[in-house]
């Protein structure tokens, strides 16, 4: 009986979590319907030393009716910028791999976030500290190009 009660409460908790997640996704979809073209929002980046590394994170949304592909990234504070993805290779071991092209399907968004997709900024041309900003430019297969100011923070 106790086992059944435990399973019941666990199942109920999972259902509640799932419904919250669904609500969150729906909110994102509602927001998605309000834009047009390709938009980049919530951009930010980590601090980094000159000559070393940083990473930029953001939400990229494709409001178009056609799928698109992110093909190039550039930053005015780094010699090289590339899309990479962190992932757990095995228990407790984090690895990173390049993502040369990233699909951004029609009417959807892709989030770049810590521990996942990110724009890797290599060979920084200046120190990036909290409060600084730099410009990031994303170019898509469709020919669209989006530039955003990226604030640096912890």
């Amino acid at each position, binding site marked *: 009986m106790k086992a059944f009660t435990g399973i019941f409460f666990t199942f109920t908790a999972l259902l509640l979590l799932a419904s919250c997640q669904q609500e969150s996704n729906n909110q994102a979809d509602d927001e998605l319907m309000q834009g047009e073209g390709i938009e980049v929002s919530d951009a930010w980046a980590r601090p980094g030393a000159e000559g070393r590394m940083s990473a930029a994170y953001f939400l990229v949304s494709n409001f178009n009716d056609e799928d698109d592909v992110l093909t190039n990234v550039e930053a005015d504070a780094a010699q*090289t910028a590339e899309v990479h993805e962190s992932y757990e290779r095995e228990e*407790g071991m984090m690895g990173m791999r390049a993502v040369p092209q990233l699909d951004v399907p029609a009417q959807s968004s892709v989030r770049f976030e810590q521990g996942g997709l990110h724009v890797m900024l290599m060979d920084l041309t200046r120190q990036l500290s909290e409060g600084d900003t730099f410009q990031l430019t994303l170019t898509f297969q469709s020919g669209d190009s989006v530039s955003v100011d990226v604030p640096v923070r912890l």
Partner: protein
Amino acid sequence: MTFSTLRSAGIFLSCLLFIFLLTSCGPDRLDDYSDESFELVNQDGESVTFPDDFRGSPLVVGFIYTNCPDICSFITANVRKIYNADTYPEGTQFALITFDPERDRPGVLKSYAAAFEMDRAPFHFLTGPPDEIETLMNRVNIRKAVSSEQTTDSGESIYFLSHSDKILLIDSQSRLVFDYGGSMTPVDIVAEDLGKL
């Protein structure tokens, strides 16, 4: 009431008692580094003996390499946020130790620390001779392996490492008390645990 019902109730109460005893004894010690001694160097080029020089103070320690753009900057930021939470015991020290000593020399660590506005007490960015660092990393169960190499647009060859993702809490007697996923554990949980030391 059947025998099997009584037996189930007995097992359930025993489990409750076991959990109660576990939680009432305070943080368990996961490991003891008090007999260890590693000769390291901080971002100012000063000698630091780990963990001896931190004995007497709780220590928050993360493991990084500065050519890591995502996970290690995440770990570094988390250590800074634990400090910012201001719930730590007086005298707590905060260290970040590189597992890439060939590239992360003191000057490199100093620039990295400055970018995070952590080039000051109570933060310590530590490196050391490669064999000493390797022995230390083995002792604290930090693993690393070269995962890829590439050339930057300026022609510099660069390699990346797969690595463990950890932040440790060490008590004032150099004993390991908590072991977290360095980038994934919410900062408030670490800060709360630190307040128990």
